[in-house]
């Protein structure tokens, strides 16, 4: 259906009616940020039903896309209606991106699966805002679970992990992989571990290494207060081996979150993070604008100058509130 002539409310209605392009357009608006994203947030937040948000992360080449693809084949068979957000990095030089994750998922996906590729777009904290916004759109349109698939590298991973209820970390067999996972901090964020390509040599060794590291974190008290220990699953994504068990583990984690009250707590904490982020970003641009216009006298102490700037911004916001 042509969506070009629709106004915003009609667009939302079309999306809620299942029009895939309308849903895609709402995601685009979220990605664009600013007033468009805000419009979508306001229109969707009350329609969310608390979809289960699952982050799938890990090193490049671990098989995340294939694994996610297998899940999109399995989940409809279990009566679920999954949406996938596939995140890929934008080129820091050109701002463009090659988004190729859906290739490996497309053929496998069941009928009503929604797959959307997004690029990180590089601007500070951008993903931190757009991922929750995209997830909110999917949730509001009745998709559940929402799978966020991304390469686990630095900020991208933090933003994705922050947005998920359950984080699945995918590694491959090989003596280095478990160590790498630990170094990348993935050990702390993982709710479920997957050793993909488990048909390769070294799978059982990697499993043992991960178990040892989990033992250590138990000793050091880093573990979940309720005593949850991330399970380690073995999969061969290319032929689907272990995928159903993986999903069972994800469900088990969800159940754990619900029964301990942690789900609600995590969601509040994410909301706080999102709201804080938004305010921070708004202030950041104000600060930058004001700083840009500030008269800088190198003879003055930086402490003084900063004080002046803060005053000025305070003044601006005071006047915006209509205070004296």
């Amino acid at each position, binding site marked *: *259906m*042509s969506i*070009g002539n629709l106004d915003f409310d009609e667009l939302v209605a079309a999306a809620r009616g299942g029009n*895939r*392009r309308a*849903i*895609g*357009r709402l*995601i*685009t608006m979220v*990605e*664009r*940020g*600013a*007033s*468009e*994203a*805000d419009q979508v947030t306001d229109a969707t937040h009350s329609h969310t039903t608390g979809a289960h948000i699952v982050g799938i992360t890990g090193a490049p080449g671990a098989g995340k896309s294939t694994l996610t693809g297998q899940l999109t084949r399995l989940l409809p068979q279990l009566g679920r209606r999954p949406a996938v957000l596939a995140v890929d990095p*934008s*080129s820091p030089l*050109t*701002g*463009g*991106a*090659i*988004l*190729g994750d*859906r*290739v490996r998922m*497309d053929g496998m996906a069941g009928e009503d699966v*929604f*797959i*959307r*590729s997004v*690029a990180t*777009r590089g*601007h500070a904290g951008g993903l931190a*805002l757009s991922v929750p916004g995209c997830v909110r759109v999917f949730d509001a349109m009745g998709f559940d679970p929402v799978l966020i698939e991304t390469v686990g590298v630095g900020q991208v991973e933090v933003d994705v992990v922050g947005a998920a209820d359950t984080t699945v970390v995918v590694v491959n067999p090989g003596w280095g992989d478990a160590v790498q996972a630990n170094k990348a901090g993935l050990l702390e964020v993982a709710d479920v571990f997957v050793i993909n390509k488990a048909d390769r040599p070294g799978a059982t060794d990697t499993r043992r290494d991960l178990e040892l590291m989990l033992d250590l974190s138990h000793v050091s008290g880093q573990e979940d207060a309720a005593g949850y220990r991330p399970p380690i699953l073995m999969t061969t994504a290319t032929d689907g081996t272990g995928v159903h068990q993986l999903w069972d583990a994800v469900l088990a984690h969800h159940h754990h979150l619900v029964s301990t009250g942690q789900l609600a707590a995590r969601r509040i904490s994410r909301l706080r993070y999102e709201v804080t982020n*938004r*305010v921070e*970003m*708004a202030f*950041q*641009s104000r600060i930058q604008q004001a700083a840009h216009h500030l008269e800088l006298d190198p003879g003055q102490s930086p402490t003084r100058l900063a004080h002046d700037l803060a005053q000025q911004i305070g003044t601006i916001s005071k006047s915006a509130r209509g205070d004296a």
Partner: protein
Amino acid sequence: MTTDAAAAPKIRIVLAKLGLDGHDRGIKVVARILRDAGMEVIYLGLRQTTDSIVDAAEQEDADAIGLSMHNAGHLTLAPAMMTALHAADLDIPLIVGGIVPDADIAALEAAGVAAILGPGAPAEDVVAAVRAAINP
């Protein structure tokens, strides 16, 4: 409350090959060219169908579709794609790249193809053609 100023709208384009043809050298070069021009390329690659391309274009809210053709497939494949786009009410431009003899250009344009790029078209031309097709 608004957050940061809206970023300049990114062009999102689906690139694909229809049918069995496996020559993807050209389409890969175009993918890089468009990425280097700041666009987001949803790369579907080989062995796509008109259905899979339409589905992707919808979900990705693509601004355009680029198809790469060899082996004289353009006379059947390009019109088939246009038909599928019309059937889905997807009013986005179709750009065709590859070996298209001059004699066939008129036929493709009549079928609704927005732009035709020859093999080895310079990067500037490719980028300009995509931009012009999206914002005529």
